[in-house]
């Protein structure tokens, strides 16, 4: 009898930048990451087709540089596909053969499967083992779980001891949203443009002014959500820095860290040292606020509670 041991390393994936950052901000951000502990870096614009500080050719060039620096690079597709132009971009992502592609919706599954290595994005609504198996049958061997799933559900869908497998027999790897504001909803409508009372198609790219999104609070001052163009995020930052053992036990193989505008390289370093270097987490997350990392923290989804809740260990 052999048993499958949990992976020694919890791999660290830097998710695609979900906000609208300027070209120079993006290039600086990725130059820093090249020397950092990230294993995988996801590149591309997943939220709004109008954001074009970097085009596909720019992302591909950046991907080559990061690849040369030893990073595993994945291209992200848009989450909401609305137009023929959106589909043409997907087709171009399918035609490149350098990088795996993270599918944001079923359009991407249709156009990418069998053509490029496929990563299952967090918005594909895979809530059960049978659904994950359906997607493994497309050849995908990496799955970013929906943020709503709890630890016990992750373990039931893709347990470490008996993972879902692709037709070629490769085990599925589960990735979990370990750091960052939660991507909660998408719309055709742009809420940033709505706030500024400008039309979406002539928005002046007002979201460039909000590198961590636009905070929405209840009228009694409780930070609640964040408007990021057509995406709505949580105001809280999901933070699973203290959950390494539980995540491993639930079969999680990699952690997604979703970029924020300030202090992200320290977050990444802390995750690497705590998850993979046996360092103590004491005081680490508490020090992020001084670097400009947003807060407060939440981890409710992990424990089958409302996602906004923070449950201390």
């Amino acid at each position, binding site marked *: 009898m052999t048993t499958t041991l949990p992976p020694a390393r919890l791999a660290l994936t830097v998710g695609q930048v979900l906000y609208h950052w300027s070209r120079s901000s993006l290039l600086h951000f990725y130059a820093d990451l090249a020397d950092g502990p990230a294993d995988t870096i996801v590149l591309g614009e997943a939220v709004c087709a109008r954001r074009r500080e970097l085009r596909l050719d720019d992302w591909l060039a950046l991907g080559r540089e990061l690849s040369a620096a030893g990073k595993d690079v994945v291209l992200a597709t848009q989450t*909401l596909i609305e137009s023929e132009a959106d589909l043409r971009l997907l087709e171009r992502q399918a035609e490149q053969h350098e990088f795996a592609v993270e599918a944001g919706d079923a*359009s991407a599954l249709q156009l990418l499967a069998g053509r490029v290595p496929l990563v299952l994005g967090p918005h594909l609504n895979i809530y059960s083992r049978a659904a994950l198996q359906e997607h493994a049958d497309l050849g995908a061997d990496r799955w970013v779980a929906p943020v709503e799933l709890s630890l016990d559900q992750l373990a039931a869908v893709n347990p470490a001891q008996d993972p879902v497998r692709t037709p070629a027999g490769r085990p599925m790897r589960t990735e979990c949203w370990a750091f960052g504001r939660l991507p909660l909803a*998408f719309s055709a409508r742009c809420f940033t443009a709505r706030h500024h009372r400008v039309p979406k198609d002539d928005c002046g790219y007002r979201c460039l002014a909000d590198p961590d999104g636009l905070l929405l609070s209840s009228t009694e001052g409780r930070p609640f959500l964040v*408007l990021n163009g057509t995406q709505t995020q949580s105001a809280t930052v999901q933070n699973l820095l203290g959950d390494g053992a539980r995540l491993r036990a639930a079969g999680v193989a990699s952690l997604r860290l979703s970029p924020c505008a300030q202090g992200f390289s320290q977050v990444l370093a802390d995750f690497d040292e705590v998850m993979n270097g046996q360092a103590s987490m004491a005081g680490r997350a508490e020090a992020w606020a001084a670097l400009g990392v947003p807060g407060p923290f939440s981890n409710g989804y992990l424990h089958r509670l*409302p996602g906004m809740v923070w449950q201390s260990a």
Partner: protein
Amino acid sequence: MHQELPEGPELVCPAGSLRALQVAVDAGADAVYLGLKDATNARNFAGLNFDDAQVRDGVAHAHAHGAKVLMALNTYADAHDAGPWHRAVDKAVSLGADALIVADTAVMAYCRDHHPGLRLHLSVQASATSHAAIEFYRRRYGIQRAVLPRVLTLQQVGQLIRHTAVHIEVFGFGSLCVMVEGRCALSSYVTGQSPNNAGVCSPPSAVRWVDGPEGVQARLNDVLIDCYAPDESRGYPTLCKGRFDVAGERDYAIEEPTSLNTLALLPELMALGVKAIKIEGRQRSAAYVGQVTAVWRAAIDHARAAPGRYAVLPEWTAQLARHAEGQQHTLGAYNRPWR
């Protein structure tokens, strides 16, 4: 010679109860959609939906009047127990439903493997917004109809229809989701329960009304969603329709309480090749269903008989206005006034 009228779109009406089903069929629905009394459908509310005997009676009534029964099985199977979803599929077959409305690939795979002859409609909760996405579900699971999320413009709907062999159903009337259906976890973020994982949004069990200093507060799991002055009409605190503070401005920051009403677009929808029009509202009363169904039946019949002379009659508008949330009607994303 008798001249055949052009085929009209199928009028698909909500049935939250056996009474609503009967009223809808009698008022001229071509099809009704219903769900079972559990988390397998996206209107999982107390006092709503059907047990087995009611499904059987509903199917009998509908079929006797030439109408179809579509069963909504449009949530996502639980990670620990897919049993209720599998049993719901089996029941749909044994009780004589004409089609299942599905969103989860796990459920579709079960249908494909166990009931290959069962007609499948892709639920709006599957978030398929392009012909490529629809083709994914057609090839793998044989879906024959897809319900489009309420986010595309008319031009995009037309473009999609030209590129797919699958029949397209669109929302015509009812409450409006501003988010892409199947892509919204706002409700579980606040309450733990969402359309995808529990078939509910902003569930009543999490709502609390509190008398505050400035009026009546509507709270959802203690988050203040809205506050109503004594002279303001109160709405249900669906969390995306609350008033919030953004950069010092209090406003409906996401969506004002409005209803979708595409009656004025009916000839255009028909010209684009839309095969079915869905009325939202399984949570509404039988009286609502009957009146809205009657108006839409009349409108579709008018548009079929004389598409060039079609106009929305004032009495239709008056009838529908009584049922609109927030007493406002919009054309939703189809014409995108905010574009």
